[in-house]
Every structure is written in structure tokens, then in C-alpha cells.
């Protein structure tokens, strides 16, 4: 077996709040092989984005390791980390607030190149910017426009071009399409898959939209309250979900088959409980239709139920 490109070992991120520690990411172990896509799904507040940012060290993890090609990057100092960042980039969720409104398209795309000094000749930087704009499908005439002049789809293309500027290996995509209309969303998803095919990127794709995640991912990790409750290859997860939370998530997707609407659906009651000082045991137990006493007694580890399919549930 080759070393996965990205691996986290017991990664934790706690935020201090007046009421106690908020366990945003609590002991997550994931690994992504080179050239593959890991989809991370879960409801808002389950720690998806925090996980993505902790892997890139945009926020410092509280505990645990992040291995990039086998090296623990959590210990790296700032200088080494800057070097590292050339290989790992992020595409942000909201194309409206993640671009500096006072910079032109070319300035935004050239910024990472200037910060990391990968290209020093300014003419070459310009050429690179034009190359990148062509790669992501932005017409050359937009080079001197400002973000507010463009629509959401084009703005997200700028965000993608910026992430590609340093020729990274690994890109965290934090809900890159959730702010876009369906038809534009499909254009961006196609673009991202084409780029992966031609340049061999490794993606961590964070989203709450299960149909998108199924479409783009090789493997899927389902998160609930800072913990990973189920990981499996994409097809396996959709055909054979095991964890009650995964089942509930899949059942909640409105399907395109209108005959379903007369059927009574299994809908999970309640909402996500507070992640501040969580109780031991399964964090889904309070909403779980099958919860028993054993569920809340002790912490539950991921177990392999089928090869490559891991589930954290007591009732197996």
C-alpha cells in the first residue's frame, strides 16, 4: 500500500468559550489517496469546515497529527509551512466574500504567486494569470474587472484559479457550489472534475449536499458533531448505509420521484445538540431512533463492517 497523500491522526480542534470547550473537531481520522476525492458531509455546525481548515493549518489544531505524504505538518514552523502551502490550497464557500473587492481579477489570481515568490518575472506572472483564466474558463476581457462586476459562477471561477495558481497537489473545497444556482453549479462541478482528470489533483470536498457528494467523490466521510461516524467508498455508502444518522440523512433528501410524496417518511426529530462539553458516548444518541443505554456509556470507535466501510455505532 502506498502512503496516502493526506492523513489525519486523532485530529482535534477545541474552541474556548465562556461555557466550556467547544469540540468542533474531536478525534478525526481520515486519509485521502493521491488523485482521489474525499467527500465530507454533515449538517451545519458538525465541524466540516473546521476540519478542512485544521488540515491546512489555517486554524491551529488543538491536538493530533496531519500527515502530508507521511510528514507531520503540525510541527512545521512558519517558514516550512509557507513552503508546504504551495502544495495545499483551499476554495472557499462564498464567492461573494472570499474575494477582496478592491483587487482586480488579475491581482487576486497573482496574489499567491507573489506571496510565495514562485515566479519572479512580472511578465511571466501575467502569462501565468492568463493561462489560469483560460484553464478555469474565464474570458481574457475580465482581467481588469473587479469581483462585484461578475456573477457568482464567474467569481467562483476566480476562486478556483487562485487556488490553482501555485500548482498544488491537494485542494480543500469548502462548499464551492452551495452558493450557486443549479445550472451554474453543474458547470463548476464539471470544471473541477475536468481539472482533476487533467492535473491529478487530490480533493477534500466539503458539502452538505449529498447528491453533489455522490457525484464527485471516491470516498465519503459522514460527520456528526465533530466526529466521523461513517466512512466508505461512495457507492457502498449510498447502497448500504449503516449508521442511523447516515440513513436519516439519505432519507431526508427530497427525491425527484413525485410518487414518494404520499408516503410517510422517516424524519429524524430534533436538532444537533450543543457541541460544548459533549457527554461521552455516541453523540447522535439523543436523536437516534434506536438508541439504547449502552450508546451513552462510553466513546465509540470506528469499526470495519465491510472491507473499507467503517462505522461508529454500538448496535453492530
Amino acid at each position, binding site marked *: 500500500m502506498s502512503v496516502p497523500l493526506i492523513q489525519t491522526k486523532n485530529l482535534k480542534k477545541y474552541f474556548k468559550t465562556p461555557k466550556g470547550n467547544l469540540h468542533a473537531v474531536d478525534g478525526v481520522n481520515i486519509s485521502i489517496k493521491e488523485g482521489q476525492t474525499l467527500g465530507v458531509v454533515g*449538517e*451545519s455546525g458538525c465541524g466540516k469546515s473546521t476540519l478542512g481548515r485544521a488540515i491546512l493549518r489555517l486554524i491551529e489544531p488543538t491536538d493530533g497529527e496531519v500527515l502530508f505524504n507521511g510528514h507531520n505538518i503540525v510541527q512545521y514552523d512558519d517558514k516550512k509551512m509557507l513552503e508546504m502551502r504551495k502544495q495545499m490550497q483551499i476554495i472557499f464557500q462564498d464567492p461573494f466574500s472570499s474575494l477582496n473587492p478592491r483587487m482586480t481579477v488579475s491581482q487576486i489570481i497573482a496574489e499567491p504567486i507573489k506571496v510565495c515568490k514562485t515566479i519572479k518575472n512580472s511578465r511571466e506572472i501575467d502569462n501565468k494569470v492568463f493561462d489560469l483564466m483560460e484553464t478555469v474558463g474565464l474570458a481574457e476581457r475580465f482581467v481588469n474587472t473587479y469581483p462585484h462586476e461578475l*456573477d*457568482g*459562477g464567474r467569481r467562483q471561477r476566480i476562486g478556483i484559479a487562485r487556488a490553482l495558481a501555485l500548482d498544488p497537489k491537494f485542494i480543500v473545497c469548502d462548499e464551492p457550489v452551495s452558493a450557486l*444556482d*443549479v*445550472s*451554474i*453549479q*453543474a*458547470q463548476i*462541478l*464539471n470544471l473541477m*472534475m475536468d481539472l482533476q482528470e487533467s492535473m491529478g489533483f487530490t480533493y477534500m470536498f466539503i458539502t*452538505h449536499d*449529498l*447528491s*453533489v457528494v*455522490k*457525484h464527485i467523490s471516491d470516498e465519503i466521510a459522514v460527520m456528526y458533531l465533530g466526529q466521523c461516524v461513517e466512512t466508505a467508498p461512495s*457507492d457502498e455508502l*449510498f447502497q448500504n448505509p449503516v449508521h442511523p444518522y447516515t440513513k*436519516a*440523512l439519505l*432519507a*431526508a*433528501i*427530497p*427525491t*425527484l*420521484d*413525485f410518487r*414518494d*410524496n404520499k408516503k410517510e*417518511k422517516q*424524519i*429524524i*426529530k430534533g*436538532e444537533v445538540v450543543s457541541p460544548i462539553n459533549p457527554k461521552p458516548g455516541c453523540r447522535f444518541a439523543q436523536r437516534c431512533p434506536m438508541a439504547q443505554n449502552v450508546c451513552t456509556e462510553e466513546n465509540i470507535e470506528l469499526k470495519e463492517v465491510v472491507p473499507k466501510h467503517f462505522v461508529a455505532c454500538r448496535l453492530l
Partner: protein
Amino acid sequence: MSEKLLEIKDLHVVYETDEATVYAVNGLDLVVNKGETLGLVGETGAGKTTTALSIMKLLPDRIGLIKNGRIQFEEHDITKLSEADMRLVRGNSMSMIFQDPMTSLNPVLTIGYQIYEVLELHNNKMSKAQISAKVDEILKLVGLPPERKNEYPHQFSGGMKQRVVIAIALACEPKLLLADEPTTALDVTIQAQVLELMKGLKDKFNMAMILITHDLGVVAQTCDKVAIMYAGEIIELGSVKDIFESADHHPYTVGLFGSIPDMTKKTRRLNPIEGLMPDPTNLPKGCVFHARCPKCMEICKTKKPQSVTKNDHMIRCHLFKYA
């Protein structure tokens, strides 16, 4: 046949801004019968919300103007009602749920008072105690504990805030509910809860509903009729069966369906619609969709297509010619 509740005829709405005139709604015809749910689908900027605001007469003052057309709601023509008369209708027999529950509640008033306010305005015969009892009843109906009525919006989660907004809209048991993307800001599991709640309440009060959304899945789960909007026009209208199963579709509808990743099939590429929505200040001649249409013909560029109807399934496209 069921009774007509709302009938819109040839509605034209424009926004007059300093720079240009935005043609938001261009000749829209729509009928909603009593107790029926109509799904209004389209991309951002298609004019869905403008249509709803016109029905509620909530278009921005002096900027949003109804240029032409009639909105017949029960015995009133809404376009001709004075603001004072409209206030008696709005919130009482028709009400609206806004898109973003986080910003559509008043942060300095308790949620109980915000529901109380609606009832107080529209029921001058009820005593204070009666209204309070009614507030408790409505809160229970939308699945919130009445003990929390003295709390403020920030103390509730997104799903619960949306329940409060629904409670306000339903307080006077309206005959028509306009729901503008009621679940877009919510997670899937909470979305399922809220949709289930709205379906239940709609049946209970025998209310008609216009559900504005861009999620075709939500439409399939809740609606009886579907209208697909593009650049201020309805380009296809029919029952859910027509839209989801019939073989004939407007090319835009086909594109919309192609853009959704299909959960049952594994395809590597999606088939999105190329290009962008036309600029509403400068709409193209002919069919509004022709610049993006894969089946565009010469006639589409010059002549506006007429609507073609077969068994209540309307398509506005030159490709179709029924007798």
C-alpha cells in the same frame, strides 16, 4: 372543477432604477385554485420573488412598478387596492414566508409578541387573553413549546426560527400562503421536518400555497402544479406528472434536470445549460432562452413563441405545435 383563488393575467413588473429599467416579470399568467400547491421554479433572477412581492403588493415603493396586468384574489383586484385596504388582506387572508429566517424576525421583540401582533391587528374582537391562548395554540401547532414564547429570536436555531416565521404567517389562517424558498437556508434533515410541517398545516387549513424554490426535489415532494420561470416568463406549466414524467419539455426544463446530479445513476459529467441568464435590463428579441438553447432555430431569434397547451400542460417554445 375546483374554485379559483388567485388569477394573474398578463402581469408586467419593472424596477425603475437610476441607471436602467429592469424588466423583472414579463407577461405572466397564473391560476391557483383553492387548496392547491403551486411550485414556482427558476434560477436566481428569474422573477420568482418579484411575482410573490407583486401578489403581496410589497414591491419597493416608487421603484418596483406593476406596468400592466391584473391580479385577481378572491373578489379583489390587488393592483387596484389602496394601501389601507391591502393591509386588511395582507397577513389575514394571504401571507408570506420569507427566504431567510435569520433576518425576517425582529430581533428586539419576543417571538410570542411577534405572533400576538398579527392576531391583534386582524382580530379586533378577540380579548387579550383569547389572543394569548391562540398564540400558545399556534406555537404547539408548529412544534415549539409555548413556554419559550418570551424568548428572543437569537435564542432559537435556524429551523426553530423558520417555525416561528411559519407560525406568524399562519396565525390568521390565510387562504393563500406564499413561501419564498422557505427551506433554502436549512440543513436537509431540518428541511425535511419543515416541509412535512408545512404539508400537514396546509391540509389542516385547506390552504393554497405558492412554493418558490430552485430545488426540483422539494417540488416533487410537495407540489400539485409546477410553473417553470425564466427571465420573467413562465416557459412551462403543468401538473407534477407533466413536468416530471411527460416526454415533451421546454429545452430549459431539460437543462434544469440535466444540471442535478442524479442519485440513482452514476454519470461522470453533468449536462448543464451553457451560458448565463440574459440581462434583465436588455432582454433579447424572440425567445428569451434562445442564446442558451441547444435546439435554437432561426425563428427563435426573431419571433416570441406562443404558449402551446395540451391537457393543461403549457409549453412556450417554437418546437411544439399542437393543434
